Structures are given as structure tokens and as C-alpha cells.
């Protein structure tokens, strides 16, 4: 294989991976965030107390999280066809990736919010804040450093998951590595894919860390 061809393949795979991760990460976070907020604030005696719903949603979240990703991909093919119009290709692969992201993000957000000092909620209530203001101005604002790290972790995991959607013709770097590197025995392609993935994950992690540090005002030295 020529260098040109290899670069072309890598560029295409990288683009597909970034596209899948970005779209499923975005939609998954958009849906997972309110679920996470709900899980963290709907326990007994909490801001939006609804212990029954809390348990039901918690169960669904756990069930989704404990289903192995590759089984999820296959199991929801009919659903994928409804949403994406097809069950094959990069667009179709976004559906299971998103479904897997939602509970992951929900639990991360829940954990981050539960770490926020209860005294701050008390102070906000004493100021006359509405429950919604407490969520946006206190819980989410104070949890931002943890949330940034959590979303970073989500993206890194998504990059890994996206390698598995080759099973439904999703494409991407992982798929490239398997088809060329493994099935056609081209170790140089495999190596190139791994290198690109390492660089990609490293870049995401560094960006996430930097973002979390910017949000974090808790340990400043003047």
C-alpha cells in the first residue's frame, strides 16, 4: 500500500471516528445531563423529591449500562433503522453509541452533583432561589470541574466503543485497523491506526484536563 493510500484511509477513518464520537457525545450528553440532574436531586427529601421515579430511572440506567456494547449494537438494530433510516453505516452507528452514552453521562453527572456541598444548596434556598436556579447556579456551576473531567472520560470511552461499530459498517479508525491490519494482515496499517488513536485520546484528555483546571477555583494560590 502506498503512503498516499494509507494517509487517505487514515484521514477518512479519523473523520468518521471524530464524526461519530462528536455527534453521539453531543446528543448523549444533552439527554444524559438532565437525567443525571434528576437522579441526583430526586431522592427522598431532595430538591425534586420523587423517590419512585428515581428508582425506576436508576434501574433503566443500570440496565443499559450493564449491557455489553456489542450486544446493544445488534439488539437495537430495528430501533436504529427507525431513527437513522438505515441499520448500516456511520450514521446508523451513531444510534447505539448515543444510547450507550446517555446512562454513562447520567451517572457521571449524578456523581459530580452529589459531591457539591449541601451547605451551598442551603445558602441558595435561604436567598430565595427557585429549584431551577439552584440546579443551574449552584449544582451545575459548582460541579463544572468534575463534569468536564467526566465528559472527557465519556469521549475517550466513546472513541473505544466506536471501534466496535465496524460490526454494523460504521467505519472509523477501529474498523480500518481490523479490516486492513487484521483481516488483510497489513501490520503497518494497524500500527498507524493505533498511533493515530493514541494521539487522538491524548489530545482529548489534555484538552479536558485543561478545561477542568480552568473551571476549578477551589485550590487557587494567590
Amino acid at each position, binding site marked *: 500500500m502506498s503512503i498516499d493510500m494509507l494517509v487517505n484511509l487514515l484521514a477518512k477513518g479519523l473523520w468518521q471516528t471524530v464524526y461519530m464520537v462528536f455527534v453521539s457525545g453531543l446528543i448523549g450528553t444533552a439527554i444524559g445531563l438532565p437525567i443525571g440532574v434528576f437522579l441526583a436531586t430526586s431522592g427522598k427529601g431532595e430538591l425534586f423529591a420523587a423517590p419512585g421515579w428515581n428508582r425506576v430511572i436508576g434501574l433503566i440506567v443500570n440496565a443499559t449500562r450493564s449491557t455489553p456494547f456489542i450486544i446493544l449494537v445488534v439488539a437495537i438494530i430495528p430501533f436504529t433503522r427507525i431513527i437513522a433510516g438505515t441499520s448500516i453505516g456511520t450514521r446508523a452507528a451513531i444510534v447505539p453509541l448515543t444510547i450507550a452514552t446517555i446512562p454513562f453521562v447520567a451517572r457521571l453527572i449524578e456523581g459530580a452533583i452529589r459531591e457539591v*456541598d449541601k*451547605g*451551598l444548596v*442551603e*445558602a*441558595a*434556598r*435561604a*436567598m*430565595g*432561589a*427557585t429549584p431551577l*436556579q439552584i440546579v443551574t*447556579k*449552584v449544582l451545575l*456551576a*459548582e460541579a*463544572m470541574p468534575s463534569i468536564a473531567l467526566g465528559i472527557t472520560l465519556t469521549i475517550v470511552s466513546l472513541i473505544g466503543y466506536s471501534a466496535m461499530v465496524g460490526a454494523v459498517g460504521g467505519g472509523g479508525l477501529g474498523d480500518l485497523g481490523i479490516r486492513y491490519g487484521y483481516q488483510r494482515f497489513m501490520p503497518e496499517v494497524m500500527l498507524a491506526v493505533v498511533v493515530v488513536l493514541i494521539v487522538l485520546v491524548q489530545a482529548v484528555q489534555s484538552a479536558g484536563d485543561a478545561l477542568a483546571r480552568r*473551571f476549578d*477555583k*477551589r*485550590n*487557587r*494560590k*494567590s
Partner: protein
Amino acid sequence: MANESALPETDPMLVFEGVTKEFPATHKGENGFKALNGVDYTVPRGTITGIIGRSGAGKSTLVRLVNGLEKPTNGRVLVDGTDVTKLSGGSLRTLRRSVGMIFQHFNLLSSRTVFDNVAMPLEIAGMPAKAIKAKIEPLIDMVGLSDKLDRYPAELSGGQKQRVGIARALATDPKLLLSDEATSALDPETTQHILDLLKTINRELGLTVLLITHEMEVVKTATSRVAVMDGGKIVESGRTFDVFLRPQHATTQTLLASMPGTGLPDWIKRKVKDSPAPGDDALVRLTFFGDTADQPLVARLTKELGLDVRIMSGTVDEIAGDPFGNLVIAYSAEPGVMEQARAFFAKTGLVAEEVGYVD
């Protein structure tokens, strides 16, 4: 209990009427916990009123009823005439804006600067940014933090954090300020500065302050009235000066005894005897206050009764702005002499307590 009706302040800012609070049991089959057991108390407008009690007495539970953070099981809580227990939703939030609160652990948002923390109550109330700035800059100036506007709480000392807390509590022009152990995490010197600030605010803004504490020292320096809590009840209340001078309830006496400057010094305690041996002296503790504070006491005892007076220990202090002294003296334990001395103390209006005997 001190005579409340004789006090000039009768205009109530805050009234507790037959308030009880029972927390539900955590486990099935157990009884609930009665944190408040029938509290009737009035906080007069414009005062700094202290509530003191041991840990678990129910102090925090009581203040949390004032701004509706907690609902009483029974009774009414009137803030400036409004029954808080009847409010909910928007009307409760509106009331909360008229009641400021400061906390032991400051409860500042770590993600916000000093300015943004103080701005938060106004932001919540929907005030435009320009108006917020005009409103809070003088406040931050008043608490002495104008040079720290853009700092984050992590960059401030405890005392500075509490100043931010105070400025934040004042942002919505409250008529009542609740302070739950606001100085308990601070060293004595910083505590004094914060109490001075609260006194200034009380004086200049006419703000009523309800000060929860477990330290008598705080009550002594900052409040004009005090209520002592024990077991979910108010067991004693009145003017701070009177309560300090003539504590009636055992809880108050214990709390006072733990304060430096009251009670007997340890070295004297070790020497006190219950009955005199021949040649021993009687040990007497004199408490003087108001106009009796500046009499040439010892000189008069010596001159008028011809007593040999030994001064064992003495302190002169201030309670709620009035001078207050404590003098431990010893003189002959002969019954005749002691009788004479008693008559002298009664005539001069001194509070004298015969503590025991020393050699």
C-alpha cells in the same frame, strides 16, 4: 427569669409561638425525635439577640424555621407579622429575600468571585447587572473587601470569607439577619472583628440580628438580649446583662462557668474548704456592675469595718457594653465580722457570694 415587661423594646421583629418540631424516625418502629419542645420567644426589632445552648439543644432547628428552610410540626413563626409557616413557593421565596443568613462554614460558591458571590441573591431576584453593581459595591466596601472583588473564596482567609457571607446576606436589604454559629470556625481575634462588624450593621442599618452560638463570650460581647436553650426549650431569657449577672437555670450557670473570667480561678478552687479551721479566712466573691463598679470598695471595707482584706483575684469586664466586675476577697471568718460584712454589702447593693474558707 428577668422581667421582660419592664423592657423598653416591645415592637417584635420575630415571634415564636408554641413552636414544636419533631423529626420523623429514621427506622420504622422507632419514635420520632422532638428537636423543639414548645418554644415561645420574641425578638424585639433592632436588637442583636443571642440564642445559646449546648450542641443538640435545637438552636439550628429553631433558626431554620425563621426562613422556612424547615417547617415546624406545631406553632407559628411570625417574621415582622407574617406567619412563615403558612408560606410556600413564590411567597416563601419573597420572604427569604427579607431575611439574610450567614453560616458557620460560610457556604460561598467556590466557582464565583467575591463580587459574583455577593451578587448572587440579586441575580436570583432578577435584578439587572448594572443595578447589581451599583448596589453591591458599597456593601463590599463596607465589609472591607473592595480590593478583593475578583478573588475566589479559596484565596481568602476565614474572616474574609465570613465578610463576603455578610455582604451577600445584606444584598437584598433584609430586615432580619440570621447567624448560625457564624464565628465558630474563626479564631478569637477574627471572631471579635466579625462581631464588631455585626454590631456596626445593627447600629447603622437598624437591622435585627439573631445570633446563634454556643460560646458565652460571643453573647457577652455582641448581644443585648439572650435566650438559653436546652433540650428543645428556652429555659431562660432576658437582657444579656441580667442573665449574666443572675443566671437562674443550671444550664446557664454551667455555660457561664466555662467562660474565662467568671467563676473562681483554678488555684483558688483547689484551696477552698467547706468549713473553717481556726484562723481561716472567709472567701467571698463580689460581683459589681453599673454604678457599684466604680466605688473604692476595698478601701471602704477596710475603713468602715476595720477589716483586713486579702484580694485573691479580680477581673473587670464588659457585658453588652456595661462594666461588670468580679472580685474574690478573703477576710476574717469570725461570725460577727461576717455578719457586719453582709450588712455592708446589702447596704451598698453589691452581690456577694460566700464561697467557702481559705487559710
